[in-house]
């Protein structure tokens, strides 16, 4: 049972290319001693800073579809109405998460009543108010949360992810 929304997500790749960290790519430059010298590689993924929305676009408890760090990684931006850990904005209540279930990659639905993300496939649940902590389920990590920053104009930027996103062995592709 594949999710139809996969088609809509598309394969736009306009974010690709400039943000890729070099992970172990060997350089071919030859030194004087005739030995291959490894290229300096970054130890962590280098995340882009992408504008997701403006504070004015958000209404309490109404998730907005976003994608981060690229168009193939769907997520939601959410204003919870009360300050939570990791929340940003004037009320400290704006958070964003990947919505691919870290168990098997199904699209999570948002339950506005208890503010959890719920998997239709195998019923895992994640708490939007507790950093995506798994309430119950089969995933072996909590829901990846996007690190947010808000500028003076109220624009919300994502600048990082705190867990490995389902379906990619590097959070940036």
């Amino acid at each position, binding site marked *: 049972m594949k999710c139809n929304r996969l088609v809509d997500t598309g394969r736009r790749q306009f974010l690709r290319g400039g943000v890729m960290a070099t992970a172990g790519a060997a350089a071919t430059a030859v030194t004087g001693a005739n030995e291959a010298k490894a290229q300096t590689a970054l130890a962590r*993924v280098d995340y882009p800073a992408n504008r997701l929305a403006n504070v004015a676009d958000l209404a309490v408890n109404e998730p907005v579809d976003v994608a981060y760090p690229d168009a193939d990684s769907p997520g939601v931006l959410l204003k919870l109405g009360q300050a939570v850990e990791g929340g940003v904005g004037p009320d400290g209540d704006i958070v964003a998460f990947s919505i691919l279930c870290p168990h*098997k990659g199904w699209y999570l639905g948002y339950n506005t009543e208890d503010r959890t993300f719920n998997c239709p496939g195998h019923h895992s649940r994640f708490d939007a108010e507790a950093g995506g902590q798994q309430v119950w389920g089969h995933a072996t990590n*909590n829901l990846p949360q996007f690190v947010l920053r808000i500028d003076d104009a109220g624009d919300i930027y994502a600048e990082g992810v*705190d*867990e*490995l996103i389902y*379906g990619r062995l590097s959070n940036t592709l």
Partner: protein
Amino acid sequence: MGYKRQVDRLPIIPADAKEFNVTCHYCIVGCGYKAYTWPMNKQGGTAPEQNKFGVDLSEQQYQDTEAWYAPSMYNIVKQDGRDVQLVVKPDVNCVVNSGLGSIRGARMAENRPSRVTGTQQQRLSDPLVWRNGVWQPTSWDDALDLVARVTAQVVTEGSEDDLVVSLFDHGGSAGGYENTWATGKLYFQSMSIRNIRMHNRPAYNSEVHTSRDMGMGELNNSYSDYEATDTIFVVGANSMETQTNLFLNHMVPGMQNGAKFIMIDPRRTVTVHSAEQFAGKENVLHLPINEGTDMVVLNAIMTHIVDNGWVDGEFIANSTFQGGEAVAQDAAHPASLGSLDHAMRAIRTSLDEAAETCGVDAADIAKAAEWIAKPHEDGSRRKCASAYEKGIIWGNDNYRTVGAMVNIALATGNVGREGGGVCRLGGHQEGYYRPDESRCRPSGGICRSVSDPWPWWRAPRLGLRSPQDHDQRRRVQEGP
């Protein structure tokens, strides 16, 4: 705030990584996993020819993909004396779990001992001996010598019967054969000791010896029977949480194929809720009985089935004991065994009696009996796959309660047939293999060991003459 691993990428399994089949060692379901190992100084790449999956890992992989693994599925472990990288991930081609991982099995890699990553450092790698008031590490030679000397002294200064052995039985994580065979060889064959018990059991026998006394081992169907049945009947188990992939990969497809789901359990567990989500509330019946009243409700269901003639007469005539009592009640048999008529004289329980005792509606008990046994409108028999676990096993009336469960399966002909079975749901991957120990045990009078699971010579209450083993779960373990 939820704990975050802060892992933003994982090493890629190279195309030439070693590959192993693994059977998850946690629960009895026995899900298939693949283990991959490769040297520390190597790694795969995103190009299809550079990784084990042969796909472009610079692209997002989608739902249910084989080509992704969580941080919990990676570790650095010793293999052949060297540190290697390890990934243990669900096997999409295993019919047991079809690529699903549970919160247990999906953590097998990070639950390996590793001096590099610091996981599972509490696990013993060398023997400890209590000397001079502290646990002191010692060599295997020293530890085994000590065990041998103490054992010999007990036998020579006392008698062989002074030796009491308590041994483990669960060989998960590749330990089964080596350990169970060695202890059996020593204590059963070489020493022929008299007093022995294993694991959680007061006697050296099955946890559900009623089932065996009645003629069938406790694992008597295939998982596919749950997919091909009319009703799934579960008592005292919370399968969504504790046999996760049996539930998700076999019971759920059964419900999606139209099976009804009955749960008898004092608790409204997540299994009940999940079944309602998958099958619809109208196809799920939960009987939240008072604790410890399972046998009563089961006997009421049995009585209702028999009184309505929903039994499988041909099966009963051909495959169950005829002619009254076969085995009398005694210290080793908390209930007598015999024919259907013999059983009914003892267990007859009305719906109202059960409703009063169990705290559930009589109508719901009747409904359960209907869902289990009432023939289809065209007259064809209903198929019912029954399953039970700790809720009735770990009680003081284990013998009779498990027997009440098996009675229903026998009366309805749901043994050795497609869509049937009456099985345990719990335990571990025991990997059990021991020389036979067939002398009578003083503690329980159960005269056959668990390695001889078909004591059909013992006349059952409603026993099969020729039970068949449909246990198709055991996979050969070839773990790292």
